């Protein structure tokens, strides 16, 4: 037993000692301890340094709103370090390593504390007023200096090896908080048969009852009652309980995010177990029973280690069996601190005094204090402390008729304060529900609701165990009723309930110059009462301005401790009531939440879907390099030993043009457009005319947006009078289908047409090259694919290698070409058969890069590369694809807009560099006069640019202002280093303009 541990108190397992380290020193606590309770048990209060002044700081709370005791933790091993962990929430386990933060060289001696001496300078808004002279110093000196000073803990440096999980959960009633109110709500709703989920952020449930063992409920001591209540809840199959589970955010329509910590308290973590799990709960009704948060008191030196919340001291004593001090002074304006004093006295502490700012308190309290020999000072203020690393004394003065009298010292080893209680309404605020100001209690309480939510207990400003139980049960019953069920609130017999009252106030009156007082409001961010008054003086009249100007409430506790004190002081300075000054909005998450928990499974290979074709595995086995295209990964090129991309692509191009290439086109979008009105539908959607396209023939189709710009294209085959096989670009498939459905469902519902995506029904293999037919013919049954019987731009249903197939004769390369569609499961088998048989023609697999080169040699555009969403069919030189006779089609009207028909639009042309060896950079800009000064007049840019093996020179496509009228003009393309590269404007068909290569017999 360490010297501050009290025998017979607390719920920690004294049978199970646990060793852990803090700043490399080993300490012992017990199973059930937090880092904070274990360190306190060892007499350690100093746990951190503040943000701005690096002042020594001790733990001030026993809960998740802790602003001071933030430590770095790791269980050892790579990548498991994390900063800013609350010592009050982190349970200890064997092997846990923790370290203090924001200090150098040591926690006890920190050079950064020099800032504290410059306190007078570092006032609110300091940065905005200075560091401006000389101007040049900002970038080079001041700003780097300021950034160096930033931050609390160190960033992790390794990749996190842990797994994070997520789960959807649907329930009738979600109860947040497992104090008396929450438990009562869960019991009532559970008994009524509702599907109930009860959650609490702590490692065990019970809330205040864990710190109030002396209360008895229905004749049982509080802790026994808890046991039986949990037992009953656990017996109900419709109720589940989750500890270490924080409700982080309240989203639309009763969706609540819960984060459950699964392994951070374990010495040995089970294989495959996630560290945290994000629960996305959809609850029909929500009960918020989050209790209230104790308010600090604002006075000079109120941040000295050893000063903490009185409720925290009570929790450390009763839940953890730790006396935070042996000679504490209580400083309060609320009865609850008196009870803490009594508990500590009863546990063997010598309570030096109870200092209360109120003029008087209930006689019963005074009697109990007297009975324990505790001095009491009523109508007193605190004006200072002694001690730097640990409080040694509290300086107190009487206040008579508003006048602060002579000071005297109360020597002590701890000061336990209570400035009142603030209902915890953070989640309620996430719903944008309104808060109303309770003039009497000086707190905000829940007002108008926007969701199906009930607030119970201290969250509604109610006080005491009996009231909480009653109110919680009522909330549970209300929830059941709004679900259409029946439930009456249960009643509870409560004895020894310690209810109380109190007041809240601004910074305490003092006999010192307020200008010199360091009376902290936001401990972590070092915001003092003086800073807040200064902000108001400088015209910051809304609490949002005060917050942003002083950073009050922006620390990692998000103002849980500081907002109300800050508001009280600001409104006092403004001479207004709090509601007129406002309240800063609480934002999710309720407490800081691990990124990993949000990312969940979406890490590495699961970060995003990677779609793979049926032939993908062949490409992988054959050494393909891949490129991501939309969600797909596509074979980019197939390098042989020692080849870079350019060598490989040159080889693939040559092989295809000279003999035979094979290409996996399975990613192309495919849509089945069928129904009696299919032709009419196609006429309205696409620019081209479809009426005269015969069955068994195919045509290039062009799709515009209603704004007249090119959206997508693809070859479309007519399978039957009432059936089209539409192909789209790889990335465009989902968009095109959605766009078609939109027009069909909402604009032309009268058309009898149905659309079905068949992208993944078919594997698509493209064969290109003079030997394409020679290879394919022997495999084909049920169709004659000879040149005359099966001309260019035809489609037929047949079998290929015995597989049912839709066979197209089309060419995206300018060579004799076929595209074979077979049911996806046969794709790889067919590929392998063709591959085998193709060896006699030196068949060459090629990827997307070669495909791009071959099509560019023929001047075929790629939507999204040669067009960019501002290009019309005419701009792209494919005006021929527009059905001139058609009255209307999607985008037609926009083509008549003034600036679309105006001269000087950018048009797609070919570019041939004067030096055939020079390959232009895709994206490079084009100018008329390379000698002009910057900013230069740019007349276009290079959209596609490749080395053409077939032509033995470079080729490029570009969009150029008035390009069609610039044929044979020489333009200039400045390269990376600005040297202009001369290039001649040409047509876009570089290779085989007559198209003879298609006419292979």
């Amino acid at each position, binding site marked *: 037993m360490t010297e501050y541990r009290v025998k017979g108190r607390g719920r920690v397992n004294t049978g199970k000692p646990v060793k852990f380290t803090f700043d490399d020193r080993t300490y012992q606590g017990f199973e059930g301890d937090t880092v904070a309770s274990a360190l306190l048990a060892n007499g350690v209060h100093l746990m951190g340094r503040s943000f701005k002044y690096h002042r020594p700081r001790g733990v001030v709370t026993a809960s998740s709103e802790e602003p001071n005791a933030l430590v770095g933790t790791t269980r050892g091993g790579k990548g498991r370090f994390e900063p800013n962990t609350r010592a009050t929430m982190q349970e200890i386990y064997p092997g846990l390593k923790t370290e203090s933060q924001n200090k150098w060289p040591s926690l006890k001696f920190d050079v950064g504390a020099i800032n504290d001496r410059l306190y007078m300078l570092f006032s609110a808004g300091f940065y905005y007023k200075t560091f401006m002279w000389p101007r040049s110093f900002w970038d080079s000196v001041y700003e780097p200096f300021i950034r160096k000073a930033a931050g609390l803990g160190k960033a992790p440096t390794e990749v996190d090896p842990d797994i994070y999980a997520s789960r*959807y959960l649907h329930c009738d009633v979600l109860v947040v908080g497992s104090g008396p109110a929450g438990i009562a709500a869960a019991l009532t709703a559970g008994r009524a048969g509702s599907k109930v989920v009860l959650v609490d952020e702590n490692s065990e449930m019970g809330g205040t009852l864990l710190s109030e063992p002396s209360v008895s409920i229905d004749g049982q001591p509080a802790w026994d009652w808890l046991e039986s209540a949990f037992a009953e809840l656990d017996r109900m199959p419709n109720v589940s309980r989750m500890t270490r589970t924080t409700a982080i955010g309240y989203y639309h329509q009763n969706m609540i995010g819960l984060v459950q910590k699964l*392994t951070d308290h374990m010495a040995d973590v089970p294989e*495959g177990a996630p560290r945290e799990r994000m629960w996305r709960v959809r609850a029909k009704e929500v009960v918020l029973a989050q209790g209230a948060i104790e308010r600090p008191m604002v006075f000079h030196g109120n941040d000295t280690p050893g000063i903490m919340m009185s409720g925290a001291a009570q929790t450390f004593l009763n839940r953890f069996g730790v006396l935070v001090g042996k000679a504490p002074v209580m400083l309060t304006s609320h009865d609850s601190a008196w009870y803490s004093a009594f508990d500590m006295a009863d546990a063997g502490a010598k309570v030096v005094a109870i200092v209360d700012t109120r003029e008087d308190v209930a006689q019963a309290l005074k009697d109990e204090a007297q009975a324990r020999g505790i001095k009491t000072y009523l109508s007193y203020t605190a004006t200072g402390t002694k001690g730097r690393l640990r409080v040694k004394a509290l300086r107190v003065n009487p206040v008579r008729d508003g006048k602060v009298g002579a000071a005297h010292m109360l020597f002590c080893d701890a000061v336990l304060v209570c400035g009142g209680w603030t209902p915890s309404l953070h989640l309620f605020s996430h719903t944008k529900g309104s808060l109303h100001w309770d003039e009497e209690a000086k707190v905000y309480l829940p007002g108008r609701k926007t969701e199906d939510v009930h607030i119970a207990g201290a969250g509604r400003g109610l006080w005491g165990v009996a009231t909480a139980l009653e109110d919680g049960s009522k909330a549970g019953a209300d929830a059941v009723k709004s679900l259409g069920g029946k439930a009456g609130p249960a009643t509870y017999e409560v004895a020894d309930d310690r209810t109380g009252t109190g007041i809240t106030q601004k910074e305490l009156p003092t006999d010192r110059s307020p200008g010199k007082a360091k009376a902290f409001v936001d401990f972590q961010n070092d915001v003092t009462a003086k800073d807040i008054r200064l902000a108001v003086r400088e015209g910051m009249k809304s609490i949002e301005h005060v917050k942003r100007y002083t950073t009050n409430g922006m620390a990692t506790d998000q103002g849980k401790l500081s907002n109300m004190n800050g508001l009280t002081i600001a409104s006092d300075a403004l001479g207004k009531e709090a509601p007129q000054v406002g309240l800063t909005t609480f934002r999710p998450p309720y407490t800081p939440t691990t990124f990993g928990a949000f990312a969940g499974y979406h890490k590495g*290979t699961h970060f995003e*879907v990677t779609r793979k074709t049926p032939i993908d595995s062949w490409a992988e086995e054959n050494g393909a390099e891949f490129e991501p295209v939309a969600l797909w990964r596509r074979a980019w090129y197939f390098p042989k030993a020692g080849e870079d991309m350019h060598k490989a692509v040159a080889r693939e191009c040559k092989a295809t043009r000279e003999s035979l290439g094979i290409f996996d086109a399975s990613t192309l979008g495919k849509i*089945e457009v069928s129904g009696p009105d299919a032709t009419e539908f196609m006429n309205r959607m696409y620019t081209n005319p479809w009426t005269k396209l015969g069955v068994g023939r195919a045509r290039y189709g062009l799709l515009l947006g209603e704004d007249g710009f090119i959206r997508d294209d693809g070859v479309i085959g007519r399978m039957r009078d*009432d059936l089209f096989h539409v192909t789209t670009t790889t990335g465009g498939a989902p968009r095109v289908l959605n766009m078609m459905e939109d027009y069909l469902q909402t604009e032309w519902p009268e058309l009898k047409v149905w659309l079905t995506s*068949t992208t993944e029904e078919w594997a698509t293999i493209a064969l290109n090259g003079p030997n394409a037919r020679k290879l394919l013919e022997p495999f084909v049954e049920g169709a004659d694919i000879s040149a005359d019987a099966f001309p260019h731009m035809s489609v037929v249903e047949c079998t290929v290698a015995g597989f049912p197939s839709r066979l197209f004769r089309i060419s995206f390369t300018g060579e004799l070409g076929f595209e074979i569609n077979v*049911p996806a*499961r046969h794709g790889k088998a067919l590929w392998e058969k063709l591959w085998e048989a193709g060896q006699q023609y030196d068949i060459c697999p090629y990827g997307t890069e070669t495909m791009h080169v071959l099509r560019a040699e023929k001047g075929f555009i790629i939507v999204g590369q040669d067009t960019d969403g501002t290009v019309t069919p005419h701009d792209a030189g494919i005006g021929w694809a527009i059905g001139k006779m058609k009255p209307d089609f999607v985008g037609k009207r926009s083509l008549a807009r003034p600036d679309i028909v105006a001269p000087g639009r950018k048009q797609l042309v070919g570019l041939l560099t004067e030096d055939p060896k020079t390959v232009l950079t895709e994206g490079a800009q084009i100018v008329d006069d390379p000698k002009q000064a910057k900013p230069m007049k740019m007349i276009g840019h290079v959209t596609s640019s490749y080395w053409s093996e077939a032509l033995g020179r470079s080729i490029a496509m570009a969009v150029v202002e008035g390009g069609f009228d610039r044929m044979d003009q020489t333009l200039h393309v400045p390269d990376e280093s600005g040297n202009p590269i001369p290039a001649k404007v040409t047509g876009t068909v570089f290779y085989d303009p007559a198209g003879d290569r298609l006419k292979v017999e």
Partner: protein
Amino acid sequence: MNAPVTNFDAVTVTVLPPVARFNLRIAPADLAVASKALDLSLPTRIGQGSQQGDRAAYCIGPDEWLLHAAEEEQQAIAAAFDKVRTETPHSLVVISDREVTIGISGPAAVDLLSVACPLDLSRIPVGGAKRTVFDYAQVTLIRDGEDAFRLEVWRSYVPHVQGLLDVATRELAAGL
């Protein structure tokens, strides 16, 4: 495709053998014609299903049905519908290869699906089906029993969905 079969006592995940699968689009008024052609009366409410022997039909849209049958029946069924196409316009598209079916069964089946399916699974009736999402993938979820489901997943999304199911299965096995 032969995917690994992962399981522990509470849940089993398997890739099921292919079936003949169709997407049927037809005006509800003409439903009788379709029922006749399929020789199975089609359900009329979205989410409902009807089964008979190897044949099953699930209503997944106001004018959309997912049809299942034994592979060898594919051509016969296609032909039966083709006969009535001109007088009763509709669209029957073979999608046997578009999706791959993953079977998920066992006491923890619902938990496993809940890792990435946002639906309240308790509201999906046995014998019913729904198009929905599993993580980033669109799927059709079919319920065969209290703790037996099928996920029909577009072929190219299968590696992603299976990978997730694999991670989640190990997570369930860890018991936290």
